[in-house]
């Protein structure tokens, strides 16, 4: 067995002829040596590689065409659509930290902010703030009217289109309607910054902008805004603003084209009875009104 292996190694060139003869001196390797040698002399036909290649090229090859699977565009679109829906919904679920509240006509809403500050949102108003940044930055965006009871802490800012209101901890009312901006301070002190003026309000003081102009307002004694008691109070307020408020509170449309809306009104109207409210506003101004469904028309008492 060993000898056989060594012979194999010899033919594989791993052992030289001398070596194998030395290992097995009694063995006659001449026949193997000779056959190994003469086997090398066998003739193998030489192939003309270039000519063979040319012949090869002349053969007909049925080359298998690679299968082409068309990209299914519809499937692609479906996947894309699902992805878009997933991404956007997850974006709104996880990354949109803006919290907003909105009230409709004739609605109020009581909100508690993350720091336990209280906000009472009057009708037709919108309030939004960033939940995530609330701890660092107590800033609210307000469009409409709201009463704030702010707990003590970092500066609390209410941003409106007409101006910003900054406080530390206090109670105040902000009213921002079309061409009308009013901040009333009920407790502590409030800093109001508008394009025109920067004012610090003490309790009982009011800051009011009508058509962008500062209007002087006498002090008040109330502890909370009247609208919290389902009333709207006015002190030397132009009639058009009172009408706006009536419209908002009762979800009505008032036609005041026949009356002078720049007249000022001082008084209160209730939020609970439309007729009483309209009377409360019209009688002192010597006006009359007609109700036609949601339409209300004001006219001069004397002219009819």
């Amino acid at each position, binding site marked *: 067995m060993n000898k056989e292996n060594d012979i194999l190694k010899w033919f594989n060139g791993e052992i030289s002829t001398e070596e194998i003869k030395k290992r097995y001196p009694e063995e006659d390797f001449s*026949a193997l040596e*000779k056959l190994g040698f003469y086997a*090398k002399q*066998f003739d193998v036909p030489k192939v003309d*590689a270039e000519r*063979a290649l040319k012949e*090869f090229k002349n053969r007909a090859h049925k080359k298998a065409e690679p299968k082409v699977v068309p990209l299914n565009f519809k499937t692609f679109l479906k996947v894309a659509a699902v992805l878009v829906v997933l991404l956007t919904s997850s974006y709104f679920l996880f990354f949109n930290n803006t919290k907003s509240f909105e009230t409709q006509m004739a609605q109020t809403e009581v909100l508690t902010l993350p720091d336990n500050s209280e906000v009472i949102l009057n009708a037709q108003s919108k309030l939004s703030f960033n939940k995530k940044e609330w701890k660092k930055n107590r800033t609210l965006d307000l469009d409409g009217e709201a009463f704030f009871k702010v707990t003590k802490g970092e500066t609390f800012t209410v941003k409106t289109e007409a101006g910003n209101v900054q406080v530390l901890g206090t109670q105040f009312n902000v009213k921002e309607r079309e061409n009308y901006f009013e901040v009333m301070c009920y407790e502590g002190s409030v800093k109001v910054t508008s394009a025109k003026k920067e004012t610090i309000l003490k309790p009982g003081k009011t800051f009011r902008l009508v058509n962008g102009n500062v209007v002087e307002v006498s002090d008040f004694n109330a502890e909370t805004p009247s609208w919290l008691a389902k009333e709207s109070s006015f002190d030397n307020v132009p009639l058009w603003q009172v009408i706006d408020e009536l419209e908002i509170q009762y979800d009505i449309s008032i036609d005041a084209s026949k009356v002078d809306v720049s007249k000022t009104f001082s008084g209160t109207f209730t939020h609970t009875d439309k007729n009483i409210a309209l009377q409360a506003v019209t009688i002192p101004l010597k006006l009359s009104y007609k109700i036609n469904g949601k339409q209300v028309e004001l006219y001069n008492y004397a002219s009819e």
Partner: protein
Amino acid sequence: MTKSDAKLCEEAYFNEFYLKHVQHASNFAYYKCGDQDNALDLVQDAFSKIWENCAKIDFAKAKTYLFTTVNNLFLNKVKHNKVVMEYAKAAPYIDENNESPEYLLEEEEFKKKLQAAMALLSEAQREVFLMNRIEGKKYREIAELLNVSQKAVEKRMSGALKILRKHIENI
């Protein structure tokens, strides 16, 4: 599809591959069938198969694929003829210095015996024996080409040597 697969489908690479291996492949086929024309036909068919399936064949294994295909085609197509190997013209004798007529006669006699004995080998034995002798291939290389184990190659070689030796010494 990897880069190497694509290579074989490129004509330039395929031509290179063809020219490099056509001689060895036709030798291999010749050891099997002992007929030059048949051998070349087998090789051309095998190359054809490679060209047609170029995308599916790994470039690194193309050589083995070639030999395996030649082998399979041979088993399928060619009639198993008695293979008679011819000696090359003007081949040297083992002892080049000895030119005595008796020696030359003796050697010619031996060569004839060997030629006769070659026909007795099986195809598997003959191809291994001749690839080793004529092309000087190591058993490991042969095993790789034929896609069999080195042990199998050694077994075939051993069998071939036994048969050849027995016949030469007996006659």
